[in-house]
């Protein structure tokens, strides 16, 4: 029985919504106790946090690790190191690999690779339909037995409502969580920007922000019909929010996420066709960004994800329309999120509610909180430390971050999984 005491810490407790200095004691990889009084108990080892922030480690739903298929873009090893350096202690991986993770056999391969190579907790998701083709549902039961924590076809919208309604109905019987991508694919096909003046000036094929509302309305209707558990991967527009609010008020088992890029960037950041800013759905207008930030503050949007999507240099060094979508973000998630703290939009407990507590709750994980009995998955960070991001310092194999060269504030000092330090030196 060894105990470790973190003293002089600024404890960020998203469940209580508090941000105060105190101490936290861990024992055998589990949080044993915490307090805000001046006299902490004795422990075998003491770590002085020097007033820096100690928060529950981030649980990131929707991380793309490119195994199997494109290991040169990201492996479990490199993704795990990036996560550790970013304060992300649990990654929930996407199944949109090549081949997709749509059978227990592929899932077992992935789980084995993950446990061998990654220092953080890795929880795999599986596809909802075979080959993400939207025609036949996968073996949801077997996949759950093999460890799948949620089911999603990622950015492939299941257009056949009959297929989706059956998959949702079947998932309900197993209590499986289904993650959808709210988007009307008829409108968004080929689009690389959000409709509006900017897209028109740049001559880019664009999709109306309304396409997200349409996809959302459909998904909500199907959810109401089937009564499953649903999470929306990314809500990025103001016009989708009232529909989401109604669905929640009506008692549907629905939660919503958004990506860090849609919270901190807008369409104008694309500027002269900068392909590192090409994400899916495309970056939105500033009004949409503000509305989504407010929705995270109010709790209407539950979860912030990195939507970490590694792309190699070749797939980004192309004309904008031809370039691949997506950005790496495991390591930049926290400093980017802290922009919202420094701008006064969100408090630290609000941020960690969306990055740690809510995703853990949605997946029924014991982590994501500062509370006795919870796993000691923790991140220690300096919320104020300034730096200029150099993308070549990132741990990911792919360095396609839109924040390259930008001024950031907030550095991860150390990360812990089950009480073991996996990054940093405190």
């Amino acid at each position, binding site marked *: 029985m060894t105990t470790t005491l973190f003293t002089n810490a600024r404890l960020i407790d998203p469940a209580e919504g508090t941000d105060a200095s105190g101490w936290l004691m861990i024992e055998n990889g589990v949080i044993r106790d915490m307090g805000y009084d001046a006299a902490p108990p004795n422990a075998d080892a003491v770590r002085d946090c020097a007033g820096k922030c100690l928060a529950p480690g981030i649980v990131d739903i929707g991380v793309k690790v490119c195994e199997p298929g494109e290991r040169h873009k990201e492996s479990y090893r490199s993704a795990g190191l990036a996560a550790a350096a970013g304060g992300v202690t649990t990654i929930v991986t996407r199944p949109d690999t090549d081949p997709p993770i749509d059978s227990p056999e592929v899932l077992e391969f992935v789980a084995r690779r993950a446990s061998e190579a990654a220092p953080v907790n890795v929880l795999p998701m599986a596809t909802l339909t075979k080959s993400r083709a939207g025609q036949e549902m996968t073996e949801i039961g077997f996949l759950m037995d093999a460890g799948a924590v949620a089911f999603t076809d990622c950015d492939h919208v299941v257009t056949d409502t009959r297929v989706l309604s059956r998959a949702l109905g079947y998932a309900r019987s197993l209590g499986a969580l289904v993650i959808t991508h709210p988007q009307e694919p008829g409108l968004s096909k080929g689009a690389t920007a959000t*409709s*509006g*003046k*900017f*897209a*028109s*000036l*740049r*001559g*880019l*094929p*664009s999709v*109306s922000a309304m396409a997200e509302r349409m996809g959302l309305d459909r998904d909500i209707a199907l959810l109401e019909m089937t009564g499953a558990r649903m999470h929306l991967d990314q809500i990025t527009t103001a016009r989708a929010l009232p529909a989401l609010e109604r669905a929640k008020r009506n008692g549907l088992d629905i939660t919503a996420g958004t990506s860090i890029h849609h919270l901190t960037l807008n369409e104008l950041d694309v500027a*002269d*066709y900068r392909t590192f800013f090409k994400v899916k759905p495309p970056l939105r207008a500033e009004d949409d960004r503000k509305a989504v930030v407010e929705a995270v503050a109010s709790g209407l949007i539950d979860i912030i994800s990195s939507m970490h999507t590694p792309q190699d240099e*070749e797939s980004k*060094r*192309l*004309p*904008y*329309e*031809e370039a691949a979508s997506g950005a790496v973000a495991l390591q930049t998630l926290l400093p980017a999120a802290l922009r919202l703290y420094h701008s006064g939009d969100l408090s630290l407990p609000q941020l960690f509610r969306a990055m740690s507590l809510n995703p853990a709750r949605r997946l029924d994980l014991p982590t994501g909180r500062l509370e006795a009995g919870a796993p000691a998955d923790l991140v220690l960070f300096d919320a104020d430390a300034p730096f200029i991001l150099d993308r070549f310092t990132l741990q990911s194999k792919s360095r396609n971050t839109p924040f390259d060269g930008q001024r950031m504030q907030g550095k991860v000092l150390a990360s812990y999984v089950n009480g073991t330090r996996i990054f940093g030196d405190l």
Partner: protein
Amino acid sequence: MTFPHRHLLGIEPLGPAAISEILDLADSYVDLNRRDIKHADALAGLTQINMFFENSTRTQASFELAGKRLGADVMNMAMQASSIKKGETLIDTAMTLNAMHPDLLVVRHPHSGAVDLLAQKVNCAVLNAGDGRHEHPTQALLDALTIRRAKGRLHRLNIAICGDIAHSRVARSNILLLGKMENRIRLIGPPTLMPSGIADFGVEVYDDMRAGLDGVDVVMMLRLQRERMDGGFIPSEREYYHRFGLDSEKLGYAKDDAIVMHPGPMNRGVEIDGTLADDINRSVIQEQVEMGVAVRMAAMDLLARNLHSEPAGVMV
């Protein structure tokens, strides 16, 4: 003054003074081109490469002639038939060409922004000869020169641009240029052919052609691509011609001395009545072609002057 740009990628970065500078110089090249001996040495010894990733006869010929009249060594690369088919990326193609030390690179590409991307990778001056739906700056400049010569000024004119605005790089560049020169711009066409966010462009939008043409000084028609004619964007060719094709009846709503323009190639009987297009009292379509050569000579001349110097304040 010196022309403060390294490339001509679009109208967007140009100021009114730079636009006027190109047009003034182009005026002098119009005179040169009308002489028996049509030759100057502004580009003597320089190499101009035309890279057209998209079919073009008129624009490519115009750039070629412009370069040759100024004494450049001009090479045309038929990019459609070449390395792109073998899987080479745009940047690799650009780097390969760059190694041959061209001075002027004229590029047309089917994707918006492709010419910007290429310009970042080469050491020479790049001229955008049309990229996707983004910009076609020399077309807007030749239109501006045509208007200026026909109307005696390039400001405070009422100018209607009609047709497929959404997919037209010519329309984008013209809206930008004519706006910078303080003209009143009206866009006329069915809503399916209007770009999104058009309300924020500082233009007036009409879906009734007669109302839109009422009292204008200039009527610019745009080409309607064949593949957009059937069902997708408009119900049919004949309904489009009935509502948005320019004929003498609709032109009657414009000012009596209004000029008619078209960037070519024309679809006679689709967007414009054939007789009207040939009416030398109204149509300046042939002048536009002539101005095209002069404007391209002027643009390449100005960019060549910045090639080997680093004048203060050179911008993209």
